[in-house]
C-alpha cells in the first residue's frame, strides 16, 4: 500500500513539475510579445 501511495504522489509531483514548466513557458512567451510590441512602437516613432 505504501508503494502505491508513493507512486501516486510521485506521479502528481511529476505532473506538477510539468505545469510549472508550462507556467515558465508562458512567462517567456509574454516577454517575447512585450519585446515585439516595444520594438514595433519604436519603429513607428522613428
Amino acid at each position, binding site marked *: 500500500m505504501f508503494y502505491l501511495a508513493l507512486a501516486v504522489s510521485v506521479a502528481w509531483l511529476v505532473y506538477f513539475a510539468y*505545469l*510549472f514548466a508550462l507556467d515558465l513557458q508562458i512567462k517567456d512567451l509574454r516577454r517575447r*510579445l512585450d519585446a515585439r510590441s516595444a520594438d514595433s512602437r519604436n519603429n513607428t516613432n522613428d
Partner: protein
Amino acid sequence: MRRLLMFITLALLLTSTWLAFTVGEVVPSEDEKGVTVEKNILYVHVPSAICSTLCFLVLLLTSIAYLVNSKPIFDYIGAASAEAALVFTTVLNLTGCIFSRVFWGPWWTPTPRLLTSAILWFLAVAYLILRAGIQNQRHRARLCAVFGIIAFIDVPMVFISARMMRDMHPANVGFDTAWQGVSFGLSVLSILSLAALFIWLRTDILRSRAQLENEMYS
C-alpha cells in the same frame, strides 16, 4: 495568483493521496483477499473518469460557443480541454486495465463500459491529430469545433453503459466509512483543480503563441 493556486492544488493532491491510503483505505471483501493495493486504485480511477467527462463537456460548450460567435479564445480553451481529456482518459484506461487484470482476469475485454471508455481516449487523440493536421487557423478552429461536438456523443454512452446494459463493470462506487467518502471527495476535487490549472495554462500558451504569430506576420 496562478503560482499560489498551483501550490494549493499540489497540497490538495498530496493530502488527498495521504488520506486515501491511510484512514480512507478501502479494505477488500473476504473473497478479494490480497488485492488491497489494486482496490484502492479507485481513488485515482474514478476521479479521472469524472474529470475526463468534464473535460469533454468543456470541449462541447466551447465548440458550440466558437461556432456561435467565432471568438478564437473558445478554440484555445477547447484545444486545452481536449489535451486535458487525453491525459485523464489515459489515466482512466490504464488504471482500469490494472483493475480488470486483478479482478476479472484479462487486461481488457470489450464490455460496453470499457469499450466506450477506450473510444473516449481515441476521440481525444483524433481531435488532437485533426488539430495538428490543419494549418489555416479559422478552418482548423471550425472543423475542430464540429468534431468536439460529435465527440461528446460518447460521454453519455460511457455513463449509461454500465447502468442500462449488461456489464461486469460496477455502475456505482459505494463507501463503508465517512473517511473513505472524505478521501474520495478530496481526490475528485484535487484532480479537477489539476485539470482546471492545466486548461488555464495551455489556453494561455495557445493564445500567446497565436498573438506572437500574428505580430510576426503582420
